[in-house]
């Protein structure tokens, strides 16, 4: 085409980024790569697979398939390196992380080109988004290491972390995993995705350039089997980003092992457009929401909810915009949408879309021959019940429906098993700030989408996983309390003595559900005897799964509690404390009868329980969120939101104090609880509900069941409408709870058979605050 012809057509023409240097690097490794273990690359083994360029199908390199032995060797190297790495101190590690940040910047273009070659994402994205965010993440966490000693005293590294990252942001997810882990003194074994191992291998090289001690970072390549081997290996932590299905398997596989776990999983994130929004900007936002990285983004705004009165004009604008998108060679600098990562993923997208009942609008953008490409697509006219409105497509396919009112928008937005991200477009600040907290998501963007920063926590709720990456909250995934707790001995109910006295007055302890005393559904009760062959103290109902169901329904119904002000919750907790104080003598006596403890001990338990109620009353209006210093004109608010409905198994050994210690922090933060009382000494809990009844605690906020921990733990963990389970039972139910929680991927906090001294500060404090809240990051850019 001549210049004068181009003058007439004004086409874009090709603008390719050179792949020369990246190809030279691959050639330098003879296009065969081993694992990076203990500071050097292993020989590429016999078992290997190809990694390909999805835009052309060409093979880029042969990659070693990691065996369990390879994983074990890497874990061994990491274990050996971990002590010295932790001992280096925060400031010593800060310098290493700073060097990594600098080296990422020095090799920025190499990383970007390799990433685009391997994933098919446009060079614009890898160059302008992924790689700068990677450098930012290492800088930020260099700072966290620097400040660790002063700001985070009392925390210890977890040890060796197994980390498994996906193929959509191979290097960025590597940085999100490695930077905080290293900062806090852990060492890592990271497995990049099978499709996209190259940037991780190049990163291994810069670890050497940075002078990182051998074994601090280890990279083992391979497929899902290698990942499974890593999950099963002797690691202290698994951090996984990927599909919800695999996340579920990892939850099951690690259940009961004591391995720390964070999961960042799938999503079907709503993108809500109100009628007063800047519609053109909202359309442009969708380009960055669903066509960013070809929609292969866990937090992609893939579910458009547009207000009915502007839906027609909005769709028209969107369809016009789709026509301007350029699909093609990922290394072209003027390409909007690159290749789908692998033909298998392309098939999956194609199959999901085929047969939809909706109206399909495809961009007529020309697709290159030969590679793995899918056109930008919009499907309108769908209802919530359509499969494509519920299932993650993980491709450049946007589905759309309409709503009429803000309340309906929230209801539709939350009508999903996922809860990763959400986007809201409106020019009305009242509406935006009203809607954002109501959306079930870990991240909400107002009038923007897909904004990320190391300072702002990222992560989901519901089946999008748990744990946060980024910010102070992200460090919790890589640290633990320094003190290690002793084992917890089983505390068993006092067996029936051969002879015993009956109570003077038969009092009926019931279950406490929805603010009412309820007889157990099954109609069974168990006698409770005093300690050391004491009298028959009474009976307690044996709750079954239906009682649990009723209690969860009551708790779900008490949703207004979450919106009650902290001040109001504090007043109620103080009032509970006051009323417990008024009846302290009765509880002292009851505890003594149940446990046989001396008066001094039971008095201490009651006093501490009152004190604890006051402590959580104090916290109710003080667990502030944060305004994060993100590099935009705007704020990223980290809001501490209640988790929702928490199932709790109270400690056996401290029947009153243990109950109060788990219930109070949860309700102080706005949660509703279904709490299974001490199995051994349940009558303290049934007495306590009378205190609740006289203290203005709204019905359904606290529900108390009695029964066998072993019988109900699994039911509780498996209940789809419970958002989290805490267990401090002396029955060995930790593994069961973790395994059963995989169903809806609820958060779990279990004792793994370790004791906690409820009389000491270990029975309160930041662990409880953290477990009782989810950090929601709300991004609010501003400016007129």
């Amino acid at each position, binding site marked *: *085409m*001549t*210049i*004068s*012809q*181009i*003058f007439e*057509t*004004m*086409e*874009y*023409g*090709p*603008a390719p980024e050179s792949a020369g240097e990246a190809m030279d690097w691959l050639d330098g490794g003879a296009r065969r790569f081993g694992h990076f273990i203990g500071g050097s690359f292993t020989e590429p083994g016999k078992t290997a697979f190809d990694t390909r360029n999805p835009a052309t199908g060409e093979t880029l390199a042969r990659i070693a398939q990691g065996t369990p032995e390879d994983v074990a060797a890497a874990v061994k190297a990491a274990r050996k390196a971990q002590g010295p790495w932790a001992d280096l101190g925060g400031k010593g590690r800060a310098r290493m992380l700073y060097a990594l940040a600098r080296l990422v910047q020095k090799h920025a273009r190499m990383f970007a080109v390799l990433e685009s070659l391997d994933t098919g994402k446009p060079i*614009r994205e890898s*160059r*302008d988004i992924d790689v700068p965010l990677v450098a930012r993440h290492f800088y930020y966490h260099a700072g966290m290491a620097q400040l660790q000693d002063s700001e985070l005293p009392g925390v210890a590294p977890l040890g060796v972390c197994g980390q498994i990252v996906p193929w959509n942001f191979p290097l960025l997810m590597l940085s999100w995993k490695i930077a905080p882990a290293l900062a806090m003194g852990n060492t890592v074994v990271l497995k990049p995705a099978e499709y996209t191992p190259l940037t991780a291998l190049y990163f291994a090289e810069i670890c050497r350039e940075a002078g990182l001690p051998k074994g601090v970072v280890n990279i083992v390549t391979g497929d899902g089997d290698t990942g499974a081997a890593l999950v099963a290996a002797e690691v202290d932590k698994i951090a996984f980003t990927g599909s919800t299905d695999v996340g579920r398997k990892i939850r099951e596989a690690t259940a009961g092992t004591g391995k720390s776990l964070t999961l960042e999983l799938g999503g079907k994130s709503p993108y809500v457009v109100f009628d*007063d*929004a*800047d*519609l*053109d*900007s*909202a359309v*442009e*936002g969708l380009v960055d929401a669903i066509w960013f990285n070809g929609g292969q983004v866990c937090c992609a705004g893939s579910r458009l909810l547009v207000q009915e009165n502007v839906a027609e004009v909005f769709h*028209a604008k969107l369809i016009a915009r789709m026509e*301007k998108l350029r699909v093609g060679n990922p290394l072209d*600098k*003027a390409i*909007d949408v690159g290749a789908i990562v692998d033909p298998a993923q392309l098939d999956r997208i194609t199959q999901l879309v085929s047969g939809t009942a909706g109206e399909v609008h495809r961009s007529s953008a020309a697709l290159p021959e030969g590679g793995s490409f899918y056109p930008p697509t919009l499907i309108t006219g769908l209802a919530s019940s359509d499969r494509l409105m519920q299932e993650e497509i993980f491709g450049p396919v946007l589905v759309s429906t309409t709503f009429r009112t803000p309340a309906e928008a929230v209801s539709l937005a939350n009508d999903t098993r996922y809860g990763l991200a959400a986007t809201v*477009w409106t*020019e009305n600040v009242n509406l935006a700030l009203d809607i954002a907290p109501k959306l079930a998501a870990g991240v909400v963007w107002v*009038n*923007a989408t897909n904004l990320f920063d190391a300072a702002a926590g990222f992560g989901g709720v519901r089946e999008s996983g748990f744990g946060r990456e980024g910010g102070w909250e992200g460090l919790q995934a890589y640290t633990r309390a320094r003190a290690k707790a002793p084992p917890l001995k089983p505390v068993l109910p006092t067996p029936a003595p051969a002879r015993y006295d009956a109570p003077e007055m038969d009092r009926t302890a019931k279950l406490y559900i929805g603010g009412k005393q309820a007889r157990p559904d099954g109609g069974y009760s168990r006698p409770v005897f005093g300690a050391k062959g004491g009298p028959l103290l009474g009976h307690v109902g044996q709750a079954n799964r239906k009682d649990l169901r009723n209690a969860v329904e009551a708790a779900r119904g008490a949703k207004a509690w979450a919106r009650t002000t902290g001040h109001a919750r504090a007043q109620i907790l103080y009032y509970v404390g006051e009323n417990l104080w008024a009846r302290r003598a009765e509880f002292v006596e009851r505890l003594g009868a149940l446990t046989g403890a001396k008066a001094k001990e039971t008095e201490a338990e009651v006093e501490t329980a009152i004190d604890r109620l006051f402590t959580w009353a104090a916290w109710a209006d003080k667990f502030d969120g944060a305004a994060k210093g993100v590099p*935009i*004109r*705007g704020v990223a608010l980290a809001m501490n939101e209640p988790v929702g409905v928490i199932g709790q198994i109270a400690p056996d050994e401290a029947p009153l104090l243990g109950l109060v210690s788990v219930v109070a922090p949860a309700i102080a933060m706005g949660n509703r609880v279904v709490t299974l009382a001490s199995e051994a000494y349940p009558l303290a809990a049934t007495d306590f509900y009378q205190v609740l009844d006289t203290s203005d605690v709204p019905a359904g906020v606290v529900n108390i069941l009695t029964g066998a921990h072993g019988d109900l733990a699994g039911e509780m963990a498996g209940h789809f409408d419970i958002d989290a389970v805490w267990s401090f039972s002396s029955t060995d139910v930790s593994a069961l709870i973790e395994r059963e929680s995989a169903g809806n991927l609820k958060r779990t906090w279990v004792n793994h058979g370790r004791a906690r001294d409820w009389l000491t500060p270990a029975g309160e404090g930041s662990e409880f605050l953290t477990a009782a809240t989810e950090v929601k990051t709300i991004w609010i*850019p*501003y*400016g*007129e």
Partner: protein
Amino acid sequence: MSEEITDADPGLRPHPQDGVHQDAAHRGGPRPEGAQLPQVTPQAEMHAGAPRNAGTALDLSRIRAQAANTSAIERRAATLPGRRSVKKDWQAAWLLKAISLIDLTTLSGDDTEGRVRRLCAKARQPVRADILDALGVPGLTTGAVCVYHDMVAPAVRALHGSGIPVAAVSTGFPAGLSPFHLRLAEIGESVAAGASEIDIVISRRHVLTGDWQALYDEMRAFREACGQAHVKAILATGELGTLRNVARASWVCMMAGADFIKTSTGKEGVNATLPVSLVMMRAIRDYEAATGFRVGYKPAGGISKAKDALTYLALVKDELGDAWLSPDLFRFGASSLLGDIERQLEHHVTGRYSAAHRHPQA
């Protein structure tokens, strides 16, 4: 090739001090007349083969409903240079297109007839003939020449036979605060002197006080005074306070019959920017969807680099479409931009980095 206008270049920034006035250092004699690329001259009530914008009634509900989210618009503007890139022959062709869209401008108190003659000669032959020949586009001219009223007649004479239109800034340019009847009369005088395009300035106070009816009436009157001459409405966006005001003013002027909407006089503290351009282009697009009329767009002031011009063209192409990549619907109000483009084009032809003194000045 090429003068790689590299992606490492910083993004476009406003150039507060860089007005549309002609760089005083530019000098040069008349160039021999050559064959000209066809220039579409204004036709009665037709505009690039399409009906000229007749305007509509003032629809206040639409004015009030305008939304412009500044942060989102800035993000789009900031990422655009990274999303679009033209290289090699395409870059050369696009830069030539940019030249064909320039309103080559001098708006200085010391303008003289001789100075304007030199400028017109540059408009006829904006790039050295050998370079144009090498590129295969002999006879390229700028889109128009833009001057004050007193320089219209000399410009018309100097451009005689070239087909290059003369645009006159008018209505008390740049502040627009002279008596209304004089502003109207000024339009008539310039049209009588041979200007076929009139760049009017709006009364910013009507925007700032929300007096949309007054703005509409003023624009209507200017349009009528222009008669067959095309009218470009200068919004002086740097003085309107908000992007939402830019959107509202764009709509009022289009409803009142503006043929073009234009950002700036070049005399405001901030002149053409990408965010402002995005808002105005989106208004133009919506106006076409609502009325069927295509209104032109002219960013002016602050566009001095070839790389900037390419970014603007990409924005036009993506936001408005290829139809707007024509002098009938798009102009750059610029003075020093041409010099930078000339250097890039010589580099494209020779493979060597160029120098300013190798290109004749205006």
